[in-house]
Each structure stands twice: as C-alpha cells, then as structure tokens.
C-alpha cells in the first residue's frame, strides 16, 4: 500500500475533522474522543453535504445539511437512511497520520 503522510493527529481537534485535498476530491479525516482516526470522502451519500463540517459523536458523524448519520468505520448511513460513502485506510504511527490512496498509487507507478 502506498501510504501518504498527511500530518499529525494533533492537527485535528478531538471530536472534529479536517480536510485533505486530493486530485480525487476532498477527503475528511476524523478524530474521535478516544483518538481513533478515520478517513472518508467528504461527500455525503445523500446530497453531497461536506461531512467534515458535521458533528462527530462516537464513531459517527452527522451531516450538516440534512442530518444523516454516517458511520466512520463502514461509511454506511445509519438508522433509516441508506447510502454509502468511500472509506480510506488510515495508519497512525505515533502522532503521524498516513492515508492510502490506491488509485493514485497505481497511476503514479
């Protein structure tokens, strides 16, 4: 896997998110209360709302536009809604964070 460094876990507020710009669009990187880190596309499966701007609770985020709740672990919409957003592998080494962008890696090769 091609791990790309994106910064430090301390760059993200607990129960918050930051964006990473990529050629494939924005990726939202989340940090939970217990310092787990997740990355998903910053694009709500409902109407494309920016998930990075939502409220983070447990391992889920509530979309700021119409309150869909998305699981950070699976990318699936929880509750009565149905939808899926792409999840991106994350690696934490000490404080340093890496994400894996498969498609990019193969393009680069």
């Amino acid at each position, binding site marked *: 896997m091609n791990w790309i460094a*994106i910064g430090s876990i301390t760059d993200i*507020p607990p129960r918050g998110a930051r964006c*990473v*710009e*990529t050629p494939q669009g924005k990726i939202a990187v989340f940090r*939970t209360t217990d310092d787990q880190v997740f990355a998903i596309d910053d694009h709500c499966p409902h109407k494309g709302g920016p998930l990075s*701007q939502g409220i983070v609770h447990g391992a889920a985020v509530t979309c700021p536009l119409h309150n869909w709740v998305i699981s950070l672990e699976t990318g699936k919409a929880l509750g009565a809604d149905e939808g899926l957003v792409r999840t991106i592998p994350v690696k934490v080494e000490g404080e340093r964070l890496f994400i894996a962008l498969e498609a990019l890696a193969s393009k680069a090769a």
Partner: protein
Amino acid sequence: MTEKLVIIGNGMAPGRMLEHLLEAAPDRYAVTIFNAEPRVNYDRIMLSPVLSGEKAFEEIVIHGDGWYIKHGITLYKGHRIVAIDREAKTVTSDHGVTESYDRLVIATGSVPFIIPVPGKDLPGVLTYRDLDDVNAMLLAAQSRAKAVVIGGGLLGLEAAAGLKERGMDVTVLHVMPTLMERQLDPAAGYLLQKAVEARGIKIMTKANTKAIFGNGKVEGVELMDGTIIPATLVVMAVGIRPSIGLAKEAGLEVNRGIVVDDRMRTSDPAIMALGECAEVGGHVYGLVAPLYEMARVAAAGLANSEERRFVHSDTPTKLKVTGIDLYSLGDFADGEDREEIILRDASAGIYKRVVLQDNRIIGTVLFGETADGAWFNDLKKKATDISEMRDTLIFGQAFQGGVSSDPLAAVAALADDAEICGCNGVCKGKITGAITTKGLTGLDDVRAHTKASASCGSCTGLVEQLLRLTLGEAYNPAAVQPMCGCTSLGHDDVRRLIKAKGLKTIPAVMQELEWKTSCGCAKCRPALNYYLVCDWPDQYADDYQSRFINERVHANIQKDGTYSVVPRMWGGVTSAGELRAIADVVDKFEIPMVKVTGGQRIDMLGIRKEDLPAVWADLGRAGFVSGHAYAKGLRTVKTCVGTDWCRFGTQDSTGLGIRIEKFMWGSWTPAKVKMAVSGCPRNCAEATCKDVGVVCVDSGYEIHFAGAAGLDIKGTEVLGLVKTEDEALEVIVALVQMYREQARYLERIYKWAKRIGTAEIKRQILDDADKRKAYYERFVFSQKFAQVDPWSERVSGKDKHEFRPMASVGFAEAAE
C-alpha cells in the same frame, strides 16, 4: 380538466369533508372556499376550553394556513357569500369576488337565536358561536364584573363556567324549571343545577326575560316577574337556527334547514349542503357526530367513489365543564310502554337512568359517573335484548358476566365494533388496529391516525385505556420525552440537574446523568453546550465541537458547501461607508450573490470557506461585526423610521431598536430571538409577530412577546405598557433572560410561553420587581463573556484550522 368545487362556509363539516375528498380523489377538483369568519378551520367544540383558559386558540386549529397551501386550496377568509347565481353557476362575496363553480357545497352552519326583547342590540350583549364571541367575552371578563347568561343548555352552561373561571360573577337564567331539559330528565337536571351552583354560579330557573336595559351599554336584565339583575355582560345562548337565507334566496328547497336527500344533494343537482344548515330526513343536527357522517357521504358523492347514504342515529350529549360528568342519549320521556331502571347514590352524587322498551335500551342518562356511556350506547345501537342482565344492568358493564370492576377489564370486554369516539364515529377495533399495525405509541398518534378523541376529547380516557390494553407496560402517558436516544431524561430534568449538581462540562453531565453513549449525539450535545453556556457564563468553556457548523464557523452553510455572511446592521440602519465596504468585498472575493434579507440587512452568499477570515477582516475594517444570522441567539432588531422622520411616530423606535440590539447582541439563546420596534400602532416594523416586539404609543412602550411568523403564524401577546425607554429595555432583557434560563433547546419563545403560561411570565417580569432586576443582572453578567465579535476573533487567528485544509496530497504524483 379539473372541475371547480366551491364551498360556502369553512366550519367543521366541510373541513372534514375535504379531508375525505382529498384522500379519495386528491386531484379531481380545484377547490375554493369562502368563509365569513376571517380565519382557518378550527374545532368550534373546543371554544369552551379556550374561554375558560384551558386551551389556546392555536391548539384548536384543525387546518392551519399551511394545510390550504399544501393542498392548493384557495381560502377566502372574511368573505361572506351574498348571492348564488344558479343560472350562471357563480357565487359572489360581500367583497365583490365572484367565482364560478361546477359543484357547489353549502355549509353555512347555524346562527345563534336572539330572543326579540328590547335592548337585545345593546353593546355588551353577545352570543356564543365563534372565536370573536369568545374574544369579546374575554375582554368583558377583564372587568371581573357581573355577567348574565340567558339559556341553561349545553352552550349556556359552558359559557357560564368559562366566565366564572375568568373571574366574573355569573347568573344563568333558564326559562324552564330544570336545566338542559331537552337532554336531561328533571332528576338529573336538578343534580346538574346543584353541581353548577357549587362552583359559585347562580341559577334562576323559570326565569323569563322581559328586557335588557342600559344607557348606551348593557346595565342589566329585567325578568317578566319584575326582578332586576344587574350585569355588564349578557350572553344569549338560547338555541341556534340553521343558516338557510342564502339557499332560500337562490330558490333551493328549504324547510327548517336546506332540504337534502340522503346523499346530501339539494334540489339543484349541482349543489350539495351539509352541516348544521342541512336538513335530512326531517332532522337538523347540532352536534358534530352526524355532521361528520354527512361529511363522509358528501365526500363520497363528490368523488363518485361509493354509494354512501346518510342514516340517522342518536348522538350522546356530554357537557364539557371540567368536574361535571354528564351523559345523555336517546329518548327518556315517560310512556305507557316504557320501563326504567334507576340508580341513585346521593352521597356520591350519582344518578343513572336507563329507559327500556321491549327489553331494549332507548335512552340513558348518567350523572356523576359516565364511564359506562359507551357501553349503554352500544347496547342501544345494536338493540340488544337485555332481559338476561336486567338485574345488574344499571351497575354497568363491570358487573356483567363476572368481569371485575377494573375499568381496563371493562374496556377489554367491549366488542370491536363498539363506538369509542362519538364525535368521529370511531369504533374500538379501528383504534386497536391502528395501534398495532401503525405502531402508535401515544394519544397524539391515535388522534392523528384515527381522529378518535380529536374533537371534544371526552373519550380520551377510553382511548388511553385502549392504548394501555394494547401496548401493556410500554404505554406510559406520563413519560417525559427524552432529549434523545442517549438518555432517558427530558430537557427539563437535565437543566435542573446541571444546576443542582453543579455540572460544568459536557463529560461531567454525561457521567453524572448516566448517558448511554460515549459522547452523545448531534441532538444532545448542542443542547448541553447551550445549557452550560447559559448557566455558567464565566466558568464554562464553550465546546465548539458540540456546535452546529454554522455556529462553529460563524457563517451559514449553503447547499453547495459554501457559506453566507450577514454583517450586523444595527436596527437596519446603514450608511454610504458601510455599503461601499460591502461592495468592495463583493468585488474582491467575487461573491456571486448579494441579497437584502427579510431581517433588514444584507446577505452575501456563496463565499468559499477558506475566504471567510479575509472577508471578515475587510468587513471588520469598515466597522462591521457578525450578524449572528446563523445563531441560536439574538438575530435582528427590526425598526421603523419613528419620530425622527415619520409623521405618525410617537417615540424614537429606530433609536430604541439600535439600543436593544447593541445591548443584547452576542447572547446565546435556546432558539433564535428576533425583535422589532415600531414607532406607532401602524406597526411598520411588524413587531407583533416577533419573539419580542415593542409598539410605541403616546403614553410609552407597549412590550409584546411570543409571536411567530415562520413555521407557525401567531400574533404576539402583550406583556405590558411601560413609560420610559429604560424600563422597556429592563423588561425586555429580563424576559429574554428568563427564557434563556428556562426554555428547552430549540424551543422558540412562543412555545416556551405557551408551556409555562403567559400569566406566570407577567407575574415574574412585570409584577415582581426583584425578580425582574435579578434576571436583568444575570443577563448583564453573562454578556461580559458573550459580547465578543467572533469574526474579529477568527481574523486574529482563533480556530485557524477550521478554515484551511490539513494537507494537500497526490497532486504531484498525478501530474507525473
């Protein structure tokens, strides 16, 4: 082509008919309604609780304005139809609107009968039929003076009880020897009289009114026997007459009512009639149950969907005076071929009488204990032979067939087709069926889905028993609505415990109050954050991760993920300098849309998040601060031009508005707070639909509150009149602080006020000077920490991370 359906009258009968019609044939007609009353369709039955103060008018609205919009129905409020042209197929209103129809429905209801005595037209003589009558009575009741109600029937007694409740000294005059003689036998009438008198209402029977007298307004009533009863208010409730004038002039066949067949068709095939104005099979009606049946029949006819026919049935009468239980049904005159069974329990004030003919019930009167009404009604309707249970019949259902006297068991024993809700003709099976198939959990659900207990409400107890029976332990009517799935506590408990236990952080609240989730959810966290900000302004550190994005970045998110920026324009006043600065910002950042808002200021829409700090920096240089257009906090104070310019202005409304806004901006509140100050009662700043409003008058400042103009529309209530600007500011600040401390998160002022009562708010804010001062001081203290411009904070670097991506990756590789 859609046919045109025109309806004259917007009362309970046509309202119900439209519901059925929209269900059966939603797009068949273009519907236009003309209503002489200047309002939407409401539950007329519930006017008595409005009069007595148990309910507010908004609670009895059946179809709000939104309903008509949603269904594309045109409603002309305050238009009385004065002519029907059957040749041209048009109707014309008193305001000159003419509308053509393919099908016409006449539902003009009834008019109160006015006894033709001298003085009947004096000011202060009212009838009891619509909201205007209730409002007039409430106004009169403020005097706490003497009232006379003429008529000891259902309406008269409800009016008397309401006026008494409002503090008037009430006398009821009834021409017959006993009360409600048409529905009650003399024994029950006597018990009723005692019960009414026990509440301090005087009753005079065999009282024949000779004249109403007064000089310019009512001063009293004179009886035939010469007795004089002083009064400043006289309510005539002696009966109703179907309103048939319009139909008669149009040449339709009329008798007591507009004559219709059992499919509600008048003598003109294009015209139907229903409601109290209609006469079918020789009967006219004055209770809603048969009118609702007419509504079903008429809707079926209009939809051509089924051949439904109207069948006469007796409707039980119940008196809606809290604390007096009375039920009467059918025929109970004495007669050769009739037998009766009577139960009297003088000490308990109970009287029951069942009238039988050929071993079948034909009439029932219950006083003091009415729980078995539905059961007797069922036996009567089915003409059940009661010989077998004759000895125990009068003791009620609980004593039959060994069933225990548990009320739940009694309801359980009812047959599925037993009628529970008389008004809406809903039987037991329909209710239990809806509870199970639709997963209903509470009374409101049942009302919404089946209409049971949604009209006069007297079967509410039975419906609750059915809920308990069907849902078992799962039904808990007293249960508070929990804040969200993370806790079983409601908002009020959480607010109370935060204070009582001195909880000062979100984790502390969650720990101490045993939250079920690790860190809450998007519903409870913003609420908790607000409660803590409000309760510990100097100690609590605002948790931005618990704020909705708009409040976190101090701009409104748009559907494409860009933001809008609305700077404050104090009191709606701006200047060339400010406008130039806005124009420059718009050019520099290529802002795609600039719009004047409904709140008297300017909105710049479509700004990229990254640009926000730079936009604010430029605006800040011109003196702008955040307009909090995103906040559950103080939004705008709209003003009009006032004494400075306007020829009608009585006070400096612009100045006061600016003063209030400068004093209160930055404060967080449970839901948004919008205000306005108008310079005179012409009210150009629309102060009477705001959360808080001021209407300036010559003698000072009239403070209004609890208005709404968004999802709901509601005029404000008057808090009181104060003489100076300083007093106005103090009262307003204290009111808002009380709201900040007590309301539930997301509850606008009008909802909070309804929940805790305007009287209580007046008492604390206007009457109790110490309380008012204390609220005021607490607000001022909290402003020390709140009144910080969030934009300039961010321009100087706070929360920088919010406005910049964390990293930019992959671009180089992709380019290779």
